[in-house]
């Protein structure tokens, strides 16, 4: 009689443990609290485990849209010092039946962000072995930033080219006007030694640097 009563009391947790240990539908979880938080790391204890189980129950609730999931549906085993353990989820309707792996995976993936935040961890530091993290969507720009900078630079270059070309044109025009004004004075220019350099430049002659009045050194 007493044995029967004792068996009845201790059976559920034993059965629960077997459900957890032997099942194929369990996931291993690994937490790296010290890596994530350094000095602010909290200690992993029963209360933290309670929080974990409740967040998972929450995730199952959200995913199946059934409010019947409770913390008792989340069974945990293989606790290690690493802070890693295995968990399984039992159905709220039948405590002996386990929820299949795919469903748990979906629930976790959809709510990973909330689970991470509950523990102040990230996808790297709160690992569900076998469930790849859903990576954040890549930032999509309307216009690629590089095109914007490119446009700015090309615009500046175009302005520079136009400005310089226009200044050249106006300089030439001014020089032509000046030349027209000076052309009468140019008639009396002395020619260089007829023999030596006559073959070279033609009518204008050549500026003979040897006799230049250049300063001795190029000035700073």
């Amino acid at each position, binding site marked *: 009689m007493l044995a029967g009563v004792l068996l009845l009391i201790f059976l559920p947790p034993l059965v629960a443990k077997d459900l957890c240990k032997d099942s194929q539908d369990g996931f291993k979880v690994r937490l790296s609290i010290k890596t994530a938080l350094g000095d602010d790391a909290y200690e992993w204890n029963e209360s933290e485990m309670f929080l974990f189980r409740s967040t998972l129950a929450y995730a199952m609730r959200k995913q199946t849209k059934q409010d019947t999931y409770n913390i008792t549906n989340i069974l945990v085993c293989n606790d290690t*010092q690493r802070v890693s353990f295995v968990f399984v989820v039992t159905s709220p309707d039948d405590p002996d039946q386990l929820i299949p792996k795919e469903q748990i995976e979906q629930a976790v993936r959809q709510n990973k962000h909330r689970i991470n935040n509950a523990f102040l961890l990230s996808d790297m530091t709160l690992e569900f072995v076998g469930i790849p993290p859903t*990576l954040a969507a890549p930032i999509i720009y309307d216009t690629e*930033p590089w095109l914007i900078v*490119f446009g700015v*630079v090309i615009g500046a270059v175009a302005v520079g080219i136009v400005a310089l070309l226009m200044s050249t044109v106006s300089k030439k025009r001014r020089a032509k006007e000046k030349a027209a004004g000076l052309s009468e004075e140019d008639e009396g220019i002395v020619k260089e030694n007829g023999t030596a350099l006559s073959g070279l430049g033609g009518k204008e002659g050549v500026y003979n640097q040897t006799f230049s009045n250049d300063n001795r050194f190029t000035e700073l």
Partner: protein
Amino acid sequence: VDMGGDVSEAGERPQWDNKAQYMLTCVGFCVGLGNVWRFPYLCQSHGGGAFMIPFLILLVLEGIPLLHLEFAIGQRLRKGSIGVWRSINPYLVGVGIASMLVSFLVGMYYNTIIAWVMWYFFNSFQDPLPWSQCPINENRTGFVSECERSSPVDYFWYRKTLNTTPVIEDSGGLQWWIVLCLFCAWTLLWVCCLRGIETTGKAVYVTSTLPYLVLTIFLIRGLTLKGSVSGIKFLFTPDLLNPTTWLDAGAQVFYSFSLAFGGLISFSSYNSVHNNCEQDAVIISVINGLTSIYAAIVIYSIIGFRATERFDDCLSGNILTLLNTFDLPEGNITESNYEGFLQHLNSTAPQTLQELQLKTCDMQTFLSQGVEGTGLAFIVFTEAITKMPFSPLWSVLFFIMLFCLGLSTMFGSVEGVVVPLQDLNILPKHWPKEAYTGLVCFVSFGLAIIFAQGSGEYWLALFDGFAGSIPLLIIAFCEMMAVSYIYGIDRFNDDIKFMIGHKPNFFWQATWRLVSPLIVLLIFLFYFITTISKELTYIAWDPQSENFPALETKSYPDWIYAIIFILSGVPALVIPAVALFRLIRKSCSAREEKHTGGDSISHQTQIPDELDRTRSLH
């Protein structure tokens, strides 16, 4: 006698506004990307101090004399490279043409590197930087496989920037974003070179000084990062001295000074004739050498930081694997007891240890990874930048620095093409300078499109290896022989005495006549023999290869040898070809008619003599 030269354009030669412009332009031309990514690598691979000594010795014996030579002939004869060699001896015009060709070919691919720098610069204005993380694949379960297997920086460089093909034969089509960047680079170059030294002289105030500012900022930033000192120590750790150290040092000195391009001759021709070119040569050489050493220290402090980060990551990864396998609490294995733990594990459970396949974390390997050329700038350094706080800022600064270094070298390159083109008189004389520079930039841009293909990087490496190496050595050797023996060292000494007031001393005589040509000849023979003797290969990025992500060595297809011959051979063979052509033409015209005057060859050879005569009247 004053000729009212400001009205006539034919005789007027541009002049520097002030000495500072001239010095900054020459320093900018000499100090280029090679100072930042070639010298530090050579320094480290040959072992710091063991490389510096040959480098500094050859700087004095090879670099300074050659520089002084180019400055002196430019300043005295007051023409660009073709005009100068024509003045010395009309048969030597080939040397000037060879310089022009080499300047053109090198300028083509050098500006492509600047286009790549601009691409990275444009992409630096976002946080997080696009090369800091791998892009996500379609079903958002993981990262793109090519990126996962290599690294985000590798992926961004080889896939997002170059979109490389696995082999050089595979063209891969034009990458439009690179074409845009090329267009930007060439138009920006044109704006700065539009009116020759009038515009470049202003631009160099920024492009030649900004790199030093940025290097200093990076030095301060680098020294405050963890692991930087280990990088600097690695740089200076001496290695075994081997004979190739001297050859590499000699080659580095030679290429670093941008000799034989014709640009330096051109720049010094705009100086006043009594400018002290001897002093300038020494000052610029010293600045160039010191900049190389300074840049090496900065680069290696950052490399030390990156290597330390990589090492720490590697170690943390291994520790995590161990913790996970044995379910030990965090903090049980740290960096300090890692080795001890491994040994304990090795003795107790060697099988498990092997199955784990822990990565080997070796600082030396990380320090010597990919640290020269484009690999340094676009892979190693960009990775280091992503690990710094405020990465976009450092990225922008770094690529502005590279841009300025490259652009100021391009000024010299364009000068080395435009001025000989004007001297050759094949285009209408009334064309303004703007048209010449525009034409050169446009044609170069058109041809540089080959580097915008998928296989562009392989083409660029080809150009870099063959167009910018052997021909330059030949031209420099011919320059020295021409000045020392054809023009005559005595006449040259007299010219210099006229310009700066005293005859060049014994050091210059010895180096110009014997030492420097010998060094250049030795380097040339070494390069020639090594190139001829071995099979020519290139390294390719091939995701399909077994050793991926390591680069794979592939051999060139046969038709590439024709291209190599064109790149290396044509500029070199132009020198004897033009001399031969002139000889034939002269003997033909002498036979056909008696000349009377005009611009035949004999009048031009008389110019130096006439200058002699007029000088004696002074």
